[in-house]
């Protein structure tokens, strides 16, 4: 991209993308919500554009063209798949359809062709409010994309050259040049910090060999990674939480980092080492302070910026100076590129593991991938069609039994992916929404044992399947695949992909349908209330034999906007960290013993006849719903789970005897049982060495060691085995906020108590607060969105305190009312359940 931008006259820079300003977003293989540029920043902007005002329903329109199903693709309104090698052709065709400045390549797939034309027409209508981004690492493709953005008036409106993005400055060619110089013995000394080329470079093996030819190799790293292992000197640097630092992620925005903890070990920050070796005896901290105090103006101003974390000099909006000079050559190069037939591999980064940096973090390893819901390892994602052709596994028209077996058993068929001498064997996951010839495999796995107990021994390294395409590395390649006729287990936290048309679980619709029948959900809910309480009666009271809890004062509630949630899983990790949720490791995930208090349910909406054609994906964050008429509370024989006066369904861990009745009776299945001593907190000594059944992975022990236990949140109890646990609405935070308010002798303010998930959500999908106060954000959101609000399984009359806002896809499709959305199924269910009570 840097080179392309240079060729397009912008200089070797990256602009700022304003996803919030874009009415039409077209992504060509860019996973901008997952790992493209700054996904958090993109997510914030994107989230703004996706939220709907019910009175005037409008949202941005998102087209995605890609080979495999990415997190971003899962959120697209319209999605078209193509071979990874066709991405250039798609870009070219899009440009051709917009202004005809290049000749369109032939696109064989009619659906794809129509999609390109539709996207082009939409971009043209929304001139100045469109945005096209591409994840391609091919300079020519990016040049074409720049031409498209110029043609649709994106520069200065949705793309700002006034503020540049500085996250990425590397150019592939420099690495390959360095490698040749190293091999030629021209490099005298190589200092490596924050990089692991032996692993992440596509030809890491060659890099490793070349390291031997360098006279001095020094690696500054936190741990013994693949590169450090091959360097002559390893100089352990601080952990990032022990480090000082500065960064300018965007021009004019300087961020300062200060340590949150004293160094635990005898390490030295690598910058300090460099200073020392260069004869400067100051520490990096002093150096940094001096530099920025001078730059900002005074020590006081620096201190102020340091405590705020940022120092800003506002940038201006600039359209930059586009020049289309390089377009013709780029277009020619793309057209001339050879067509690939057969299977193609595409390497992608998981949101959790990234390029491999997250591999040694147990929380991230245990975070299920937004799409596959699998964790602890990589696997080959393939299409239904490829599964049928290659493995004889027909998940579309095959027997019900074979489909069920594929779903229910974690053992999945293994394939061998090979290019020449290089090959890996990986189990496959068949998912909808894949291009039929594409195999997608995540990078970041297959790590060296020296990296620690977390990363070692899981998955396979697929970086070697990338290739050098001219001067840049291409992360897709043509491969040979063979069925290995054996199976391997994949640890998935969710195995069923469809919500089975259960409108009591998920409400999702299209924008056109919503405009046509806006009160559909509301009507159904009112009907349900009548079934419980009649027209006048109080349905809350009438619907149950049990009493209704009085919640004077505070009553906590949560709202989740399914339109704003794009499934990244940051909330899950936040919850994991905040609440001392144990890491259980691959073996236990395989036994369905994962402990996440908060999970994101992912449902594919696809055509039954042709599941490869994915209509949409629904992400539904699911945690304890804190029901006011909770089915878990009345079944506990010892009242270990009960209702607080603030409407929280709370757990008294000490009281819990572990009958698991509550979990069985929870219709949301959000309760998590401590099946084994995951935390070492049990009163039984030495009871983590089980061998016959439920052998624990090393990572569990790692999480229990003295050092790693420092991550525990001191405000939250560590649960012992044998007790049930679940989301507490971050009760430690609500308590702390209340206490603070009490100390200051004032009422609690809205937003003072934030749950961890809410805080972590870039899309601002989660809102939490006191629902008794009509002026809180939560009350307002519920007030303002009556037509999209729904409660999951409302017909059970468990009276959840978590409301959801229905997901709306921005398409023109009208979902038929009769027999689908207006289907009286849920209403009947409610009436029937009501009768039972």
């Amino acid at each position, binding site marked *: 991209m840097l080179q392309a931008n240079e060729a397009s006259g912008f200089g070797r820079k990256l602009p700022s993308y304003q996803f919030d300003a874009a009415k039409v977003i077209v992504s060509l293989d860019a996973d901008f919500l997952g790992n493209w540029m700054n996904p958090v920043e993109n997510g914030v902007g994107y989230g703004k554009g996706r939220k709907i005002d019910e009175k005037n329903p409008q949202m941005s329109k998102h087209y995605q063209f890609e080979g495999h199903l990415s997190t971003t693709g899962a959120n697209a309104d319209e999605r078209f798949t193509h071979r990874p090698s066709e991405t250039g052709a798609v870009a070219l065709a899009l440009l051709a359809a917009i202004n005809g400045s290049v000749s369109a390549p032939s696109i064989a797939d009619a659906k794809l062709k129509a999609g390109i034309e539709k996207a082009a027409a939409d971009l043209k209508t929304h001139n100045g409010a469109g945005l096209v981004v591409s994840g391609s690492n091919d300079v020519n493709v990016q040049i074409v994309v720049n031409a498209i953005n110029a043609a649709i008036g994106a520069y200065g409106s949705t793309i700002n050259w006034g503020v540049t993005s500085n996250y990425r400055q590397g150019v592939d060619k420099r690495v390959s040049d360095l490698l040749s110089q190293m091999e030629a013995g021209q490099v005298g000394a190589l200092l490596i910090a924050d990089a692991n080329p032996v692993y992440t470079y596509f030809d890491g093996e060659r890099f490793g060999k070349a390291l031997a030819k360098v006279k001095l190799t020094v690696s500054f790293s936190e741990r013994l990674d693949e590169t450090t292992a091959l360097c002559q000197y390893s100089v352990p640097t601080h952990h990032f939480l022990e480090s000082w630092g500065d960064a300018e992620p965007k021009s004019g925005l300087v961020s300062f980092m200060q340590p949150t903890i004293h160094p635990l070990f005898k390490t030295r920050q690598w910058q300090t080492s460099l200073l020392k070796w260069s004869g400067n005896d100051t520490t990096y901290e002093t150096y940094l302070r001096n530099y920025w105090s001078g730059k900002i103006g005074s020590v006081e101003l620096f201190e102020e910026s340091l405590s705020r974390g940022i120092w800003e000099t506002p940038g201006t909006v600039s359209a930059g100076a586009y020049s289309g000079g390089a377009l013709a050559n780029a277009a020619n190069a793309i057209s001339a590129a050879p067509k690939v037939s057969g299977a193609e591999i595409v390497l992608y980064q998981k949101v959790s593991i990234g390029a491999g940096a997250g591999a040694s973090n147990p929380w991230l390893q245990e975070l299920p991938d937004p799409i596959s819901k699998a964790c602890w390892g990589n696997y080959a994602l393939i299409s239904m069609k490829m599964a049928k052709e290659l493995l004889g596994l027909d998940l579309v028209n095959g*027997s*019900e039994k074979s489909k*069920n077996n594929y779903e*229910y058993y974690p053992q999945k068929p293994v394939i061998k992916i090979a290019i020449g001498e290089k090959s890996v064997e990986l189990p496959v996951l068949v998912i909808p929404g894949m291009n039929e010839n594409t195999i997608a495999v995540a990078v970041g796995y297959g790590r060296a044992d020296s990296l620690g107990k977390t990363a070692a021994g899981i998955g396979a390294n697929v970086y070697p399947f990338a290739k050098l395409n001219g001067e840049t590395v291409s992360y897709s390649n043509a491969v040979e695949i063979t069925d290995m006729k054996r199976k391997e287990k994949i640890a998935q936290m*969710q*195995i*069923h992909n*469809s919500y*089975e048309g*259960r409108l*009591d*679980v998920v409400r999702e619709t299209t924008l056109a349908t919503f405009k046509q029948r806006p009160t559909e959900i509301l009507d159904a809910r009112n009907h349900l209330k009548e079934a419980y309480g009649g027209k006048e009666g109080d349905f809350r009271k009438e619907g149950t034999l049990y009493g209704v809890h009085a919640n004077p004062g505070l009553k906590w509630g949560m709202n989740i906007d399914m339109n704003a949630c794009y499934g990244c899983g940051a909330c899950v990790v936040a919850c994991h960290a905040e609440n001392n949720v144990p890491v259980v490791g691959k073996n*236990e995930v395989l*036994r*369905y*013993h994962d402990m996440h208090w908060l*999970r994101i*349910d*992912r*449902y594919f909406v696809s055509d039954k006849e042709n599941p490869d054609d994915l209509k949409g994906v629904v992400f*539904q964050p699911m945690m304890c719903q804190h029901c006011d008429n909770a089915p878990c509370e*009345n*079944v506990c*024989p*010892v*009242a270990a789970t009960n209702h607080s006066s603030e409407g929280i369904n709370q757990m008294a861990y000490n*009281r819990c*005897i*572990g*009958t*698991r*009745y509550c979990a*069985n009776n929870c*219709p*949301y*299945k959000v309760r998590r*049982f401590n*099946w*084994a*001593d995951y935390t070492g907190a*049990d009163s*039984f000594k030495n*009871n983590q060495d*089980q061998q*016959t*059944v*439920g052998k624990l992975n090393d990572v569990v022990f790692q999480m229990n060691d003295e050092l790693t236990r420092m991550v525990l949140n001191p405000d939250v109890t560590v649960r*012992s*085995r*044998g*007790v*049930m646990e679940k989301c507490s609405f971050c009760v430690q935070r609500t308590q702390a906020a209340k206490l603070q308010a009490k100390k200051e002798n004032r009422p609690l303010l809205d937003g003072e108590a934030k749950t961890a998930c809410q805080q972590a959500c870039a899309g601002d999908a989660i809102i939490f607060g006191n629902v008794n106060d009509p002026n809180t954000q939560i009350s307002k959101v519920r007030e303002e969105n009556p037509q999209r609000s729904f409660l*999951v*399984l409302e017909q059970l009359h468990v009276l959840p305190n978590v409301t959801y806002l229905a997901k709306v896809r921005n398409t023109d499709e009208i979902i038929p009312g009769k027999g689908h959305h207006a289907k009286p*199924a*849920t209403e*009947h*269910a409610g009436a*029937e359940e009501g009768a*039972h009570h």
Partner: protein
Amino acid sequence: MALLRYESQARPPLVDGSKDYHQVTEDICRPVETKPSKLWWVGFLISVVLLIFGIISVAVEVIYGTGQWNLNKTIGWGWDITNFVWWVGIGHAGTLISAILLLFRQGWRTGVNRAAEAMTIFAVMCAGQFPIWHMGRVWDAFFVLPYPNTRGPLWVNFNSPLLWDVFAISTYFTVSLLFWYSGLLPDLATLRDRAKVKWRKFFYGVAAFGWTGSTKHWQRHEALSLVLAGLSTPLVLSVHTIVSFDFATSVIPGWHTTIFPPYFVAGAIFSGFAMVQTLLLVTRKVLALEDYITIEHIEVMNKVIVLTGSIVGIAYLTELFMAWYSAVPAENFAFFENRLNLNSPYGWSYWLMMGCNVLSPQIFWFRKMRRNILLTFFMSILVNIGMWFERFVIIVTSIYRDYLPSSWSTYYSPSIWEIGFYMGTFGLFFTCYFLFAKFFPVIAIAEIKHILKKNGESYKNNMTEVEQEEINKFGHDHSHDHGA
């Protein structure tokens, strides 16, 4: 004297052969007073081995946690509660035989009630193991008892069916034990009186509570029996009703079913009788008690089996009908997808249950089949397999795929420790049963003597002489007897 000739065809003798009272005592005391056979030893040792396996399995589970079983975040109960309900159900036949049949004055019960009651007690003991050891923190199990404590406002939750279970099962066990033991008293005294060795005299002496057989003792004994029968009778209905509430009061489709109480009770009696059949067919053979546990008993019990089996069958069909008729999608799915659909992961278990519980007992409509011992034995095993699967179907196939498709679980199969625990309860059951058969009379001696004279055969024998008398002599002999 053809006028007086009376021979009952409708009521075959309850005890075969021409026994006198002494013979009865001899026959029934023989196994207690002689050295156990080789067969007994083999059976006993196998039982003890199973029991040890069970103890190890439970120990492993207590030390390492419930994760030693293959339950998961969706399937919180599996083999544990299945086994619990199965064992409790088995106990029911004993109570039914001893209590309800006593109240209904069904004489035939005396041949089988002792063993059936013992079976009840042992089965409830086995059943109790599961809710106890399935707890994640069993050392805190006493939290379920409502006793004054220093834990502040925390008290048991009377809304919880699991707490009702605690009361139901403990009451059931207590009453059954009392009933069984009070019935044993006269027989223990008999054994004491016949004892030739000192320890036997002492042991049975203490156990017999100083029973002398005085009229006062008998009167009190009879009164107590009636009271306990009166107490036990509602228990036959209530215990399994309460067990069914564990499921019926929940919100889970497939559990939340109002038909459960009668359905569970019928099922319990059904499986209980099957278990009685299994045990008694072996007992009568091994202990040579064919004259006391007769083919008539077996036939009567087979009738109960076909009746209760059919009730259970109707309950199954009613459930299916309601699942369809109610039009509740989740319920519909639980029955038609999770159960009926053979292609679903557990579909086979539903059909196994249907085959064993509903279809196969129908052969007992035929008298010939009812009186076939081998077939009865085979069927009794089949019914118990079927009834085990009924509970498995109810528990597992309901929760493994309930409301949220995201939480639909992977396939659940038991771990070795789950199997071990179940096997262990067999060990416990049979260890107890073998000891019982060795040290206690398996037939109620005192009670069977009540019905000995109700045998048509002996009646006929006694009448033969009278029948042959001259009419005048008969008149002379009998006419003044009563008036005098």
